[in-house]
């Protein structure tokens, strides 16, 4: 499609004087606040309502999640540096920073994949019930020969209980947003090789700014999830 070349940094003629794309991304982020707000509300409403385990304190690992949170926060730094570079017309530095952002975003997704897998295969040690209380068909021989404890699968999946359903829905949707963000960042990285990045430099790096706003939003949503689901969720449990 043919289109006329806009002069570098030319302002669009809009009634507000603000670029429509930037206005749209902020309106979108406002609606995303409501989307994640509903998911967080649902998680909180069903918090502690599961009739069977495991619960937050059984599976959530604060050490691992603190590291993944740090990774995502640092990806935001890389993102803002890439925007700073492109707004100054420095395409080489932009490429470095945006690639770092995508790598850190992928690392966060790796953490999430590891976490979800760990939850599904979580094992826990249980106390053996008194011999008289055991049903006749007591499943295995774990508690025979005088054993006081036995280890069994105590995994968490979306179908396990209410905690599993709400937890995986909330963090899964966040993970999907991070995935979209990584694809967006990589597409910008690839786009920067077209015409030596001139298209990205135009409008003061607006295309990068839009992606950056989305990426930082994903970051702030995680800040809330980390506090509500992990830190407070496990402390209260």
């Amino acid at each position, binding site marked *: 499609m043919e289109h006329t070349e806009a002069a570098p*940094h030319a302002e669009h003629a809009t009634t*507000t004087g603000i670029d429509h794309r930037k206005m749209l991304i902020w309106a979108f982020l406002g609606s995303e*606040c409501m989307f994640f*707000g509903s998911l967080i509300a649902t998680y909180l409403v069903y918090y502690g309502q599961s009739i069977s385990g495991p619960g937050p304190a059984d599976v959530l690992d604060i050490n691992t999640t603190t590291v993944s949170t740090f990774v995502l926060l640092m990806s*935001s730094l890389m993102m803002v540096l890439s925007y700073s570079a492109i707004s100054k017309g420095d395409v080489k530095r932009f490429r470095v920073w945006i690639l770092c952002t995508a790598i850190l975003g992928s690392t966060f997704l790796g953490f999430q994949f590891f976490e979800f897998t760990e939850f599904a295969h979580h094992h826990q040690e249980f106390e053996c019930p008194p011999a008289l209380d055991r049903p006749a068909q007591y499943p295995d021989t774990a508690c025979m020969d005088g054993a006081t404890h036995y280890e069994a699968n105590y995994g968490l999946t979306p179908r396990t209980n209410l905690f599993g359903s709400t937890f995986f829905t909330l963090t899964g949707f966040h993970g999907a947003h991070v995935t979209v963000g990584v694809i967006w960042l990589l597409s910008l990285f690839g786009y920067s090789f077209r015409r030596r990045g001139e298209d990205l430099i135009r409008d003061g790096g607006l295309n990068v700014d839009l992606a950056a706003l989305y990426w930082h939003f994903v970051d702030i949503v995680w*800040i809330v999830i980390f*506090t509500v689901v992990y830190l*407070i969720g*496990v*402390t209260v449990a």
Partner: protein
Amino acid sequence: MEHGRHPAHPTPMTYLKVAAILAIVTFIEWAIFFAPESMDSIKLTVFSVLSVMKFALVVMFYMHLKFDERLFSMFFVGGLTLASGVIIALLVLFQALL
């Protein structure tokens, strides 16, 4: 460098300082989490305050809301207010306040 209506944004050094604060606050949160159980009631307040602080830092400096058009703030804060309202309303309706 100014680009038409684009307001001046912070320097990379400011971004680095903000990142350092975010990292330190995350470390503090981690350390507080492992504090004795007797401090649990205080922990919840501290976690909430630190979370709001991190949230505000990212929004103001990385998303440039502190420096950009007020209209953007209205869009975002509007959505945020509605989201907070939905959360509070649902918690009250289902009597699920922590």
